[in-house]
């Protein structure tokens, strides 16, 4: 007998997988539903991650350290300290604010307050200090930056370092952002594991129901691929439909949540972010769905193939 082409047998496997999916509507619906929920959990985790990274970024932005200089400090001394700081690896940015600049900023900040404007005009000397504001690469490094300043040869021109006043606040913010990212990762891993296990188990039960059919196919002379192929297609179909269902629920849901969220966290636009990454999101969810379905079936069917 002439061996038929791979293309034809592939077509046959696809067709048979689709027929099985259609005929076992109930079981397919159950498996697809479970997977859709699992994938929704996955999408939810992506929202959570987006949230934590936004919040952590936002908190970290808030933290900086300023060095205030004595009024008799010369500009080149300050600039020397600035360039020293800029050579440090853990310093991201150093901003020099001269006395004049500080006054300008102060005036601008209070331009509506006539009393302050008048009192400033009365003054002969500029009462504000020159300062350097420093951003670290990582908020945990402020202590070492403060220490570096303490040991600098030009320490005498430094009046005060704001780190020591804000130390507790900085530490607390650091603590919060650290536990936020750690907790987020922990929850992500745990829930992802639950989703995978539930999906896998559903597929395993679905295939267990067909144990006898698999045995019969083998007795009629089917090779492992004849038996396995349609099941993999079926698993892939669960994954495909589940991911489409999950996306169809996810986007309206975050649209709804995003609207509510904007009122108290205006700088986090959830919906915008996920619309902007629609392609990526689609690939991740559909990809995970297909992978879960196909690999789940592959593993679940393995033990039934030894007849």
């Amino acid at each position: 007998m002439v061996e038929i082409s791979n293309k034809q047998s592939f077509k046959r496997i696809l067709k048979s997988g689709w027929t099985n999916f259609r005929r076992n509507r109930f079981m397919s619906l159950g498996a697809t539903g479970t997977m859709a929920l699992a994938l929704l959990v996955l999408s939810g985790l992506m929202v959570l991650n987006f949230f934590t990274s936004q919040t952590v970024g936002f908190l970290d932005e808030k933290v900086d350290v300023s060095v205030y200089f004595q009024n008799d400090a010369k500009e080149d001394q300050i600039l020397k300290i600035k360039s020293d700081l800029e050579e440090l690896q853990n310093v991201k940015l150093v901003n020099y604010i001269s006395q004049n600049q500080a006054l300008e900023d102060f005036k601008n900040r209070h331009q509506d307050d006539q009393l302050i404007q008048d009192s400033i005009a009365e003054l002969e000397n500029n009462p504000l200090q020159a300062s350097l504001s420093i951003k670290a690469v990582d908020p945990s490094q402020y202590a070492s930056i403060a220490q570096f300043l303490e040991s600098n040869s030009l320490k005498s021109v430094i009046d005060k370092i704001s780190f020591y006043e804000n130390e507790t606040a900085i530490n607390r913010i650091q603590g919060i952002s650290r536990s936020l990212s750690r907790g987020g990762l922990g929850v992500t891993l745990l829930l992802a594991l639950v989703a995978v296990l539930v999906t896998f188990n559903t597929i395993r039960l679905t295939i267990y129901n067909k144990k006898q059919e698999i045995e019969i196919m083998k007795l009629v002379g089917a090779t492992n691929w004849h038996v396995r192929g349609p099941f993999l297609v079926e698993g892939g179909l669960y994954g495909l439909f589940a991911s489409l269902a999950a996306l169809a629920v996810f986007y309206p849901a975050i649209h709804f949540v995003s609207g509510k969220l904007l009122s108290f966290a205006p700088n986090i636009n959830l919906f915008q972010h996920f619309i902007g990454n629609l392609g990526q999101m689609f690939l991740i969810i559909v990809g995970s769905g297909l992978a879960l379905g196909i690999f789940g079936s592959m593993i679940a069917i393995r033990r039934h193939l030894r007849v």
Partner: protein
Amino acid sequence: MIQFKKVIKKYNHHFTALDGIDLEIKDGEFVSLVGPSGAGKSTLIKMLIKEDRPSSGKVILDEVDLADVPDKEIPFLRRKIGTIFQDFRLLESKNALENVAFALEVVGAEDDDIAKDVEQVLAIVGLADKKKNFPKELSGGEKQRLAIARALVHRPKIILADEPTGNLDLVNSFDVVKLLWRINELGTTVILATHDDKIVNTVGKRVISMDKGRIVRDQLEKGKYII
């Protein structure tokens, strides 16, 4: 040609299902394998499709020692043989047509040939008008005829029937046996394992009697059911 050489099959060291079987079955023979349940008929048949392996001795099919057939080649061995079981073993999720077609898909037949051969064989077993029915919608006799159609469709050299009439009434049983007879007349070797004496006596061909894992009688012609 099928040969069994000093085949012994033991389960768990206690129970001996086959106790030194020596047997030769030529191409085109119709052999009735009789004996009470537990005599070893099913075990003998399982050896031929390598669903089970002998503890010692050799099973040879067309000069090939089945012990030498690697696991990967077992599907190809099974395609040379059509098997019919007491419990039908139909694919419940496929309809009659698809059940028969599956046996051909497995051997890699072309779609056109499958369509033609399946129609033909369903007509032979009298199920032409039930091809869209699922197994659960068929009677016992119809199920067994469908199983025969599936065993037959890829034109195997050998048909193994393990108690094919065990779940059927007398009329349906005779239908099944008549079918096997016709298949044999077209040149296919048929091995029929049964404990139904009426059927064996009707067939009247070679009868091998088994008991407790041994062959106790081998009547080469016009055999009767005798233990």
